[in-house]
């Protein structure tokens, strides 16, 4: 299935993906209104190491530990996409404890959120990919050794 991949060689560490993600999931049509003057809660985050940056979002694992560990049954897999029913989440953070990629984090309400590939929001395709200025983030099918 198509996933979001990052080519760390091309990541600039500009963090635009985080802002584009937060905006795409804000439900608003104006980025300024959506993001100005408040902390953002993106579903992708830029990892920064020594001389290296790259964005990480949910890998949509074949064998998702978060889903198996979710105490509320809020996380589930649908057509290969790991989805979250945010109404069910109680904010126990067990998924944060188990996700090997650090891909889950709470929003401002303490309810978990994660990348759902922008399938449900108005973006329609991953906003991080569309907005990446250097094609460091791509949305494509790849052979993977999981």
């Amino acid at each position, binding site marked *: 299935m198509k996933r979001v991949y990052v080519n760390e060689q091309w990541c600039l560490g500009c963090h635009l993906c985080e802002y584009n993600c937060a905006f795409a999931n804000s439900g608003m049509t104006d980025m300024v209104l959506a993001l100005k003057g408040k902390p953002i809660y993106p579903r992708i985050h830029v990892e920064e190491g020594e001389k290296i940056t790259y964005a990480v979002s949910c*890998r949509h694992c074949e064998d998702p530990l978060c889903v198996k560990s979710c105490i*509320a*049954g809020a996380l589930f897999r649908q057509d290969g996409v790991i989805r979250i029913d945010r109404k069910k989440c109680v904010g126990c953070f067990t998924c*944060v404890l188990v996700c090997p990629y650090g891909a889950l984090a709470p929003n401002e309400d303490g309810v978990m959120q994660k990348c759902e590939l922008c399938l449900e929001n108005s973006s329609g395709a991953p906003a991080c990919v569309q907005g990446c200025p250097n094609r460091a983030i791509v949305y494509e099918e790849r052979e993977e050794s999981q």
Partner: protein
Amino acid sequence: MRQYVIIGNGVAAAGCIEGIRTMDSKSGITVVSEENRAVYCRPLISYFLEKKTDPERMQYRDVHYYERMGCRVLYGKKAVQIHKENCEAELDDGTFLPYDGLCLAVGSSPFVPRFEGIENVEKKFSFMTLDDAMALDAAVSDNSRVLIVGAGLIGLKCAEGIVGRAASVAVCDLADRVLSSILDTDCAAMMQKHLEEHEMHFYLNDSVKRFEKNTAYMNSGAVVPFDLLVLAVGVRANTSLLREAGGEVNRGIIVNRQMRTSISGIFAAGDCTEGWDSSIGQNRVLAILPNAYLQGYTAGINMAGGSESLDNAIPMNSIGFFGLHAMTAGSYDGDMYEEKTETSIKRLFYKDDLLKGFILIGCHERAGIYTSMIREKTPISSVNFDLLKKAATTAAFSAQIRRKKFGGVV
């Protein structure tokens, strides 16, 4: 066609159903559920008390779950005996369920020590099931004084759920600290302070000597009047079914990494088991939710003729109180790296080139990266540990590992 029987209807049972169905989509599955409810996750009951969820949202799976999974659920039934010779489980209504594969997902039961005078306490509750929580929910009022015996995970989550709804909440425990099963002294002190700031009162290193109606007389001499008593001292794995069938049990039903018990054809999963803990390299009861599901799932696959092994189970807990989250995993063995602020503490334990365990309070971001290092036994020498100490980041891994993890072109 085979016939699978699962005794118990918790998360381990759900894992078992889902495990079976990865291998065998046709054979019948019978689930024996003592509670008159579809599967839900027991740790949610404190959130129910806190009104953060409700019975509908607590459903672990959707309403068509059992139907979709081809399961027959016998609600309100209890298994009383296993006839291993005939491969049959006997229920309390006299039904005999023949099985090709049986999974015991029978969980644990609250353990109630004998307190003097407890029989005269009117309003006493345990805190295991949704029914328990509903009873407590119905009993609590603005002027209730609540005493909770047990400052472990269950007792404190109960306290958190009730503290805003009662006049006062006191918690006592024999241990000298809160959450003694998962936190060391310093970390427990930080958490205790936080809990006290949220109107909880503690009697630690202390226990109830005797109850006199609605008053607890403590060993320390303290006198604690209360209206509601919650007993959350601890739980015991339900092992009797297997023990009586002649199976091997210790503090839990002994299972190997395929979740097989000592009796052929019988598997066990969840809080009732004593299984492999890779963090200490020996068996122990790992009564935590992710483990219940994973064990159930593993058992299910193996019951249906597959070959699955749960090799990397470790203790791990994520528990939050009033916005302050504590996460722990593995064992607190070896050298310690510590970072501490007013509101957070991070302790990483490492030994023999491996991360062995951690305690994180108020600094849980991406903790799963640490957890994965413990589970996968990633050699510390293969990562940038200095970077990793400061923050859980996959950037600390080598380019090769990152490539593998993220499938990216590096």
